[in-house]
């Protein structure tokens, strides 16, 4: 079997992966870098991020404010040493993006403009209208094109990490075009494969967000950390789950219930200011609509329980009203909101409110890394949504994730480059043998297997449904336990899967089957970690344990793969200068 070899291999070509690739190119242009992705890099889900990226740049802001907002936003679950590094490094990364051509919105004097965002004390979110992720990804992708040391493996699907000599030294991956499994070897490997929101039925996440990298690391013995913390974004379009950015509220949009009442005031999120009066101070930072996402999504559920939401064709909704901003401001600041609402909901927000409901958006948890982006396996790094450093803790603040993928993508690139310079490839024959085993496994388990009775779409629908039932916004012992059991049954049934396509070239049915395997791995860690965390913190809310319990659970959960259900261990959260306190918004 022919092997491809690089100094560093990056799996995933989204924001984090491309930032890592460029970092290596800048660090040492002599190193050969492979970027292997199941889609063309510019299709990666970074493209869908809308609102912006946070970094301290304006004179009224301070590094300490951004740190404190992030710590508080995460309900003290983030590691504070990592957060300090992240916040300090953020401005440099954002300026770097500026120098790579990102079309940031500007103030009249030509300096970079910032907007406010949920849970942030000071306006510090850089933005490119409301297509920030799109511009960030394309700026990175186009910049990456100039590096000759970079080889892309577009539309290759990694199925296994190759571990030899106690180190990760590449992957076995299917070249989709030919359907062949090939070893792609490297002295260091970086996973930048994104989250796994597709374990849920209703999500902003693209189809490709199936947690493949999390699954790869999990199988290699790396823990998946803090997986119980799943972020619901409060404003998704019903049916499609398409995201309506928080920027709509940052620019002044308000949320109202069926009576036209700004219901957030009933949930300890502050006092509404008159949004029609330009001198009222609306929108006010950390107040009402600018509270954090977990609290706003939870408020929706409570409002639903009180019978004050609006019944719609695809479940209950509330109204996001931006009409008072006027057409000019909407077109300047949130044109994509208008485009999406018109195209997918048949509503022009200039004239009508938008129906929205909470939607699964982001996984705070992921592959356990330290603040140097390193995992517990030597030579294996991770960055972006697939990783958990953790800076986001129990709830990520909007506009921290784009910055995170830059800061830790760059870190992963530099660290992997150094590791690759210090280590030789070892045991090449054995690595190639592992890839040959993988080729056989995929052939036997999926392509030549007969008599399977389970369909990919059927199992996925059942997985989605049990995850929503047991691991949604509010959770409780009995339903979580049922979900844990259901997921184990689904894993059992997954062995009995039957593909509708057993050919080789561009077999997307095979990809879907492998992705379903990843989803099942991610789902079992989410459900089990949630079951075992007997407290409420950030996005993890339990009706049977409604209080935060710092004594027992100021700890990261670490889910490890076993033959049965995952084993969950704990590690204390790193606290430096910001001891746990009450999490206050709007007062």
């Amino acid at each position, binding site marked *: 079997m022919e092997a491809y070899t690089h100094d560093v291999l990056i799996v995933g070509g989204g924001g984090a992966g491309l930032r890592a690739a460029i970092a290596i190119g800048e660090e040492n242009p002599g190193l050969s870098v492979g970027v292997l992705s199941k889609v063309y890099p*510019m299709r990666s889900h970074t*493209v*869908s991020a809308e609102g912006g990226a946070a970094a301290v740049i304006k004179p009224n802001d301070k590094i300490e404010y951004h740190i404190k907002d992030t710590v508080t936003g995460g309900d003290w679950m983030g590691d504070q040493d990592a957060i300090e590094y992240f916040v300090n490094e953020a401005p440099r990364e954002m*300026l770097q993006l500026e120098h790579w*051509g990102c079309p940031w919105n500007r103030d009249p004097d*030509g300096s970079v403009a910032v907007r406010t965002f949920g849970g942030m004390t000071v306006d510090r979110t850089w933005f490119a209208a409301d297509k920030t992720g799109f511009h960030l990804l394309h700026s990175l992708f186009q910049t990456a*094109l100039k590096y000759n040391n970079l080889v892309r493996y577009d539309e290759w699907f990694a199925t296994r990490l190759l571990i030899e000599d106690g180190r990760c030294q590449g992957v076995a991956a299917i070249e989709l075009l030919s359907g062949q499994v090939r070893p792609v070897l490297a002295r260091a490997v970086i996973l930048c494969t994104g989250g796994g929101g597709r374990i849920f039925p209703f999500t902003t996440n693209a189809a490709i967000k199936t947690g493949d990298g999390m699954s790869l690391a999990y199988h290699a013995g790396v823990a998946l950390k803090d997986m119980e913390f799943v972020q619901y974004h409060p404003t998704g379009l019903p049916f499609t789950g398409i995201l309506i950015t928080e920027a709509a509220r940052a620019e002044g949009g308000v949320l109202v219930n069926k009576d036209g009442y700004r219901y957030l005031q009933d949930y300890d999120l502050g006092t509404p200011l008159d949004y029609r009066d330009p001198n009222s101070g609306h929108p006010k930072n950390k107040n009402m609509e600018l509270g954090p996402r977990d609290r706003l999504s939870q408020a929706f559920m409570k409002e639903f329980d009180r019978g004050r939401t609006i019944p719609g064709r695809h479940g209950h909704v509330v109204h996001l009203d931006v009409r008072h901003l006027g057409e000019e401001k909407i077109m300047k600041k949130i044109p994509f909101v208008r485009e999406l609402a018109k195209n997918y909901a048949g509503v022009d927000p200039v004239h009508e409110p938008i129906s929205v409901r909470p939607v699964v958006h982001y996984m705070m948890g992921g592959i356990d890394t330290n603040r140097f982006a390193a995992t517990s396996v030597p030579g294996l790094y991770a960055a972006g949504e697939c990783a958990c450093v953790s800076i986001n803790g129990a709830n990520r603040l909007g506009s921290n994730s784009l910055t995170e993928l830059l800061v830790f993508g760059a870190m992963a690139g530099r660290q992997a480059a150094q590791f690759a310079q210090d280590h030789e490839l070892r045991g090449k024959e054995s690595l190639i043998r592992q890839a040959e085993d993988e080729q056989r496994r995929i052939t036997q388990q999926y392509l030549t297997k007969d008599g399977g009775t389970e369909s990919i*779409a059927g199992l996925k629908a059942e997985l989605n449904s049990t995850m929503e039932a047991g691991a949604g916004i509010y959770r409780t012992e009995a339903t979580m336990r049922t979900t844990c059991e259901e997921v184990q049954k689904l894993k059992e049934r997954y062995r009995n899967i039957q593909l509708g396509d057993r050919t080789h070239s561009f077999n*997307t049915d095979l990809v879907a089957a492998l992705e379903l395997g990843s989803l099942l791995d991610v789902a079992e860690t989410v459900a089990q970690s949630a079951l075992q965390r007997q407290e409420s913190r950030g996005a993890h809310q339990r009706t049977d344990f409604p209080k935060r319990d710092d004594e027992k659970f100021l700890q990261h959960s670490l889910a490890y793969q076993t033959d049965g259900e995952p084993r969950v261990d704990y590690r204390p959260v790193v606290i430096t200068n910001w001891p746990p306190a009450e999490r206050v918004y709007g007062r």
Partner: protein
Amino acid sequence: MADSTKTCTLEVFRYHPEQDSEPSLQKYEVPFSEDWVVLDALNHIKGEMDGGVTYRWSCRMGVCGSCGMMVNGTPRLACSTFLKEFYPSPIRIEPLGGFPVIRDLVVNLDDFLEKLTRVQAWLIPKENHPEVNGALKQTPAELADYKQFSMCINCMLCYAACPVYAQEPHFLGPAAITLAHRYNLDSRDGARAARLDVISSDPGVWECAVIEECSAVCPKGVDPASAIKQVKLEGATDWWRGMLIPKEKRGG
């Protein structure tokens, strides 16, 4: 959920290099729903009827650019094209025109990526500004000069619509030229001349009659035709003047 009483016919282009000597159209009867886009119908076919149907998709919100295909002969994004636009007539789904077909609705895009690299579609700064010196200034007006050309999602609909690309596969094509032009117009950039060299030496640019098919099909409202027009003007006023006239004078 789909309204179970109504159905809609999709005729899907099928070609599998391992099995088929030539392509064919296959009919599928799918449930019809007001909310469904062509992509929902394809996902229904793949999940419930025929796992072999092959196409690309991801964001299903018109920004990742994966799901470009011909819908009744016009290049469209499957995720943004509603069934109700055509119902009750059958809908013909084919791969993007002008590209080599890999399988069914999946086409090869490598040609575009090579061209994007050739035109140096990235920022080449005027002077060396290390990031520690802070952000480069750019006024809102300077941003507006190039912003719309930066909105290209690389979906390739414009190539599928382009009559020049259909005849002349070497043509850089609408998206690559638009993205080059985007950097040429960026106040921070200093490599306009180098990009114009590449573009002006492409005979395809001069064959483009600017009939604006590319702009008509762009799902993001980018106007590649105007980018090409502007590039031709710039080319004609500087570099091209120097090349064109001597060439004619050379005669035979």
